[in-house]
């Protein structure tokens, strides 16, 4: 059983949250705001392409718009496999954390 990497988890969650508005610029912005992770657009595309090749997301190419220099966008959408994978890491997280005494930081 292979779990999602943290990177993939962050990206998939972001796509899920953005729903129909999930494309390069919005995903990058969302990840930056919530996780503080800064992707270059190239690296972002590569990670998303890998997710697509694994079957967790599908790509839809939309028509070009003028603000984008006449280039199209790719909208990303979660597949059932993608959702299931997210579910799995969440369950894992909960199982692992269940019954752990309160953590305290520092010497307190």
């Amino acid at each position, binding site marked *: 059983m292979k779990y999602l990497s943290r990177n993939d988890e962050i990206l998939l969650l972001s796509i899920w949250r953005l729903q129909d508005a999930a494309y390069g*610029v919005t995903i*990058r912005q969302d990840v930056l705001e919530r996780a503080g992770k800064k992707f*270059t*657009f*190239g690296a972002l595309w*590569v990670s998303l*392409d890998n997710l697509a090749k694994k079957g967790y997301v599908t790509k839809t*190419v939309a028509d070009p718009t003028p603000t*984008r*220099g006449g280039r199209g966008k790719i909208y990303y959408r979660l597949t059932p496999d993608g959702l299931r994978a997210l579910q799995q890491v969440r369950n894992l997280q909960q199982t692992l954390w269940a019954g752990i005494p309160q953590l305290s930081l520092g010497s307190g």
Partner: protein
Amino acid sequence: MNRLRNKPPPLAAWLFRRVMLNEEQATILGDMEEHYHALRAERGRFGAALWYYGQVALSLPVLIVHAIYWKGVMLRNYLKTAVRSIARQKLYSAINIVGLSFGMACCFLISLYVYDEVSYDKFFDDGERIYRIALERRYPDHTRYFASSSVMVTPTLLANYPDVEQATRLHRLFFAPQVVVTVDDKTYQESRFLWADSNFFDVFSFRFLEGDPTTALDAPNKVVLTDKTARRYFGDEPAINKTIMGGAGEFVVSAVIEDIPENSHIDVDLLGSMRAIGYLETAINQGNWVSPWLYTYVRLREGVDPEAFQAKLPDMVQTYGADQIKAQLGIAGEDYTESGHAYTYFLQPLHDIHLHSNMEVELQANGSITYVYLLVGLVAFILLISCINFVNLATARSTERAKEVGVRKVMGSYRGHLIRQFLTESIVISSISLALAVLIAWLFLPVFNGLAGKALTLGVVAHPLVMAGLLGFALVVGLLAGGYPALVISAMDPTTVLKGAFKSSRRGIWLRNILVIVQFSISMVLISGTLIAAQQLDYIRTKQLGFDKENVLIVKQAGALQTNMEAFKDELRALPGVVGVASTNAAPGAFFGSSIYAPDDPDKPLFRTNVVTIDDDYVETLAMTMTAGRAFSEEYNDSLNVIINETAARALGWDDPVGHSLRESINNAQQEARTFEIVGVVEDFNFQSLHTEIAPLVIFNGQQGNTVAARLGPGDVQQTIAAIGETWRTFVPERALLFSFLDQDLDALYQADQASGRVLNAFTLLAILLACVGLFGMAAYTTGQRAKEIGIRKVLGASVTGIILLLSKEFTKLIVIAFVLAAPLAYFGLNWWLDSFAYRIDVGVMTLALAGGLTLLMAWLTISYQSIKTALTNPINSLRDE
């Protein structure tokens, strides 16, 4: 605002687009541009542009790594499928791999050979500035080309031509190339004892193991040995300063050089000082510009244009040599060139000597660029045949693979993927073949070396560059052979294929037929070549030469007998197995000197002719025929009489030359020109190789000679040879008899032809085998396809023979067409080759027909296995599944 100024930095965008691998990645550019506009509002144009550059710079490496990673994943998948497909089709794959690997192995061997041939003399330092000076010698009625030149060229160039950085001379003993060397009571026959100027090593960068290059040859009694020779003489002891006896004189070993690589036209075991050769010293003192007795090599200064330098050479002869030439040729008047004589020297680049020079008195038998081209052509044919096999088999199998392609397409394969899949398959096959080919080449290298007379090694294969080349080669062959089938099969329409309507396309059949025709045309041309080459060599071996070459034992170096020559000949005559004995200075096939004579008719021009000296018994012993006059005889004093051959008689233009006379054309104060009377005309005999026509020959009488010819009668040859050896020992106790047989000596003149014949045979055989292998594979598939048809025919009463004929008919048609195409090709090609012989056979129609018949027979035999098998199959087996 300017539209352009709103854009992100164009250079960065352009760079990104150049590297971008697919259209989808253009959307990244869109994303970046969208963000760029947002940033511009926030940070200004400069800040946004900086950010944009950063994005491009950081994105590109990630994208490239990503692309490579996924290519690798796909490739692994292609490879896996390819290996499975190859393993599933065992017969097909085996035929392909065997065919290709033999083709490639040929390619290697020939490449090694060609590489060796073109690498001659490349190892010398500054070799591109070294030239040999060769001579075009024009006589009033003909022109001869000599690799050698006059002794005067080198000193004249060094003294007067600043273009020349260094010039040196090299001499080979033309008449008696074998020198007896004695070292500590042991004697050796040395045939590669050459003689050079003291500055020889300044031009030719031989590596010295011991001794000093500058002083190695600065005295007449010094000699330089190669490492091999030094070991032969002295074992592991140091050779330097040791004394050896060579010919008449004593020599001190002054230096030892590394063995000279095989790929050099200068092949030497011992190198003595030129000053040890008396007649060369005399020629230098006389200022002799007439006799081309040695080889001149020059190294031009850097930047000197060889063409321009060469243009100065005729003038050099005029300026420095004209007087001497006039005196020597006995020509009065201002200009000897008006009488039709000319000495034109020209440059031969050192690197071209081996493959491009084939003149008189070469240092060694050179290779030939024609032969190299011939081999390259052959290997191209063989490779073509194996690639054709591959294509043919693949298209023949396309019906079978069509289903696979259909299913793959339905499942969503793109055409590009299928093409890649098929190409991967053929590249895997060609790579396996490559590995096998190296093995085959290694196995057959000794055989090939034997055929080609070389000592090649596969050592170069270990060189990384060669390795890369080989892999590239496998790739190219794979792409070439797999390209067509990949395109055709991948283009099939899945709906037609899966409905089962698809059999095999018309186009495929046409292509296949054309390829089979090409293959068999090539085979036929090669077979006729083999047959004609064999016939020509046989013709040469059995041609009437004008004398009887069988059973003649030649005693070489008989000069050692000195005054005992007559006694030795008499003792040989007394031996039971000997029928006749005679002596000469040069047996047929050996080096014949030449000289100039003035006919007694003052209207006739000076006459250049080959010369030879024979004794009274020679004409009878070699069974030559006199057509006019008489042969030399004991009853006459023939010392001032000569015999000429028919060609000489024609050249002189005398219907009845007997009684005419020839005067020596020399101009020498110490010697008076002698006049010789012609007493007989001998029927033309081939005293040189049959590549050249019979030249004029003047035969002198003399009882001395360096060669004794003994005709052996019936009886035990071994015993006779032993007896002759014994007799020799009684006269020359210090060394053993040196002998050969005349017919073998003459055969040796055609060694190069025989070697090419053998190589041609071997590769022809291979080409035909490969063509047959391909045909076998094709027959297997096409008859397989017709299994049902044949089943029905049998049920309806067709006979086994009828079916075999039916199946053979189609191939027979192709082979007949191939014959029609190949016959003229073979005819002209072979005539061209035969033109290199002065005495040649004609290309017979029967031979061409025979070649065609053989090809047809071979093709029938090949397909017979398949057709008989199919014809004998019980129809139940082929018809039950419908």
